[in-house]
């Protein structure tokens, strides 16, 4: 006994319904694919550029290519050239190519200290032309932490050597210090004795000598003063006196500027 009869009204046009359902589903899948494609710039026109580098280290396919922080493309592929270098092909969205000029540079940089590696392209100058399809772009690699450490190491090592030499020299000097100190003590003792002797001499003889010298100079001064005031010597010595500023009768007071 059949549960469902072929002539059941619900089965009428079933094939058509299934066909329509499949078509709608397929259409939906296609539209989704297209939408995703558009979102990922699959259908946007692109320009290929390449650069040559010694090593492909830290460069991967699919790596983002950025310009001023914006994603403008990606690394399409890496190939080994005949001379064992690496040719890296970039695809750049054509809309951004107006900033990628012949003097632009591609640099491998790290986004932040622990961020992912990206290829960053520097904007070119206005006067330069935009790069053509399949053109080569200059490339440089940002110095990594290891390279920085290497450079610091190269500079610090000679400094450390110098410090070691200074320390050794200081050791040598300090070793001789007790002897020098002893000599210095002896010299100071001798100097103190000399000063004591000098003090004895100056306390007794020097004041008398100074007094006599001063008296002699004063007497000599008086003699010279008296002689200088005596005629005819006095007539040759101009006595100090107050002078009057002249006023010229021809050119007035102006002339006195000379």
């Amino acid at each position, binding site marked *: 006994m059949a549960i469902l009869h072929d002539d059941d009204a619900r089965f009428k046009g079933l094939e058509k319904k299934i066909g329509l359902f499949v078509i709608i589903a397929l259409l939906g899948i296609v539209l989704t694919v297209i939408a995703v494609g558009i979102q990922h710039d699959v259908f946007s026109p692109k320009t290929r550029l390449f650069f040559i580098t010694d090593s492909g280290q830290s460069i991967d396919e699919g790596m983002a290519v950025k310009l001023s922080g914006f994603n403008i493309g990606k690394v399409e592929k890496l190939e080994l050239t005949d001379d064992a270098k690496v040719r890296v092909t970039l695809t750049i969205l054509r809309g951004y190519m107006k900033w990628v000029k012949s003097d632009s540079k591609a640099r491998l940089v790290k986004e932040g200290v622990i961020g992912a590696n990206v290829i960053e392209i520097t904007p070119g100058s206005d006067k330069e032309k935009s790069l053509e399809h399949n053109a080569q772009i200059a490339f440089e690699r940002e110095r990594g932490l290891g390279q920085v450490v290497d450079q610091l190491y190269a500079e610090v090592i000679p400094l450390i050597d110098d410090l070691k030499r200074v320390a050794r020299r200081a050791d040598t000097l300090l070793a001789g210090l007790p002897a020098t100190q002893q000599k210095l003590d002896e010299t100071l003792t001798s100097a103190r004795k000399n000063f004591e002797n000098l003090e004895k001499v100056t306390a007794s003889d020097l004041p008398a000598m100074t007094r006599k010298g001063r008296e002699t100079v004063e007497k000599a001064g008086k003699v010279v003063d008296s002689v200088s005031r005596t005629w005819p010597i006095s007539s040759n010595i101009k006595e100090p006196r*107050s*002078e009057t500023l002249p*006023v010229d*009768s*021809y050119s007035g*007071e102006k*002339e006195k500027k000379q």
Partner: protein
Amino acid sequence: MNGTLLLGALGLKKLVKQILLFIFPTVLLIAGCGSNPPVLTEQQEVAIQFNQRGETAFRRGDYAQALQEYQGALAIHRSVENVAGIATELLNLSVVHRRLGDKTAAQTALDQILTEGSPAFSAGQKAEAAYRKAGFYLDDGNETEARSWVNKALEYCHGCGAEGRLYNLLARMALAGQAQEAMNHARRALVLNRNAGDKNEEANSLRLIADAAFKLEDFKTAQQSYDDALRLDKDTGAATKIALDLMGLGRSVARQGRRSEAIEYFQRAYSVSEGAGDAKAMDDAAVEMKQLTP
């Protein structure tokens, strides 16, 4: 023989005695003639030091400092009523005030000497103050006041040191319209200044004679007097006046038709003015040269 020797010895003794009698009064006479100069008091010495520092500051153009120093000297002279010192410093202050642009203060300083109630300033000091007032008025273009003060100065002055300068001022005032009167005053001034031994004012008199002679179109006298003035001005080293003399010589020989000689004088005047940094005098010489260059 012994008698002859004795006579000779007595004669020698007499001769020595006579020589000593001559030398002793002569030495006394010389010692008497050599009178000692008066000893300066401590205040006088300090005042002189102020005065000398004031003059040094004035020569280097530091008029504010000169004012301070001269005021210091004046205060000391006033404290001991040293009339000559007070007059000297007031005369100096009048010049310094003029340099600082304070014409009123300059006149006030001179008025202190000329005021009747002031200490007994001498006629010579008053004549000097009146001469300066006349000069300042003339510099300011007030010829009436200048003439009045010259006359007052001449009243005070009886053989004073300012007489030659006063006649120079009179000649300077007459030069504009009365060349012959200017000539007469300048000639009188020349004699007075020459007798006083004032080379600077003697040169001024000669230049005024030359200026007057030029106005009277006596170009040979003008040339001669400018030349004499130039010789004296070179001795005193007054660059502005040397340039004026050379300009006068140039103009005098030009009017005698000696153009090339005149150009040489103007070139010398230009060079002297250039050395002294006097741009206006350089322009004057250049204009004269241009007029003579064909």
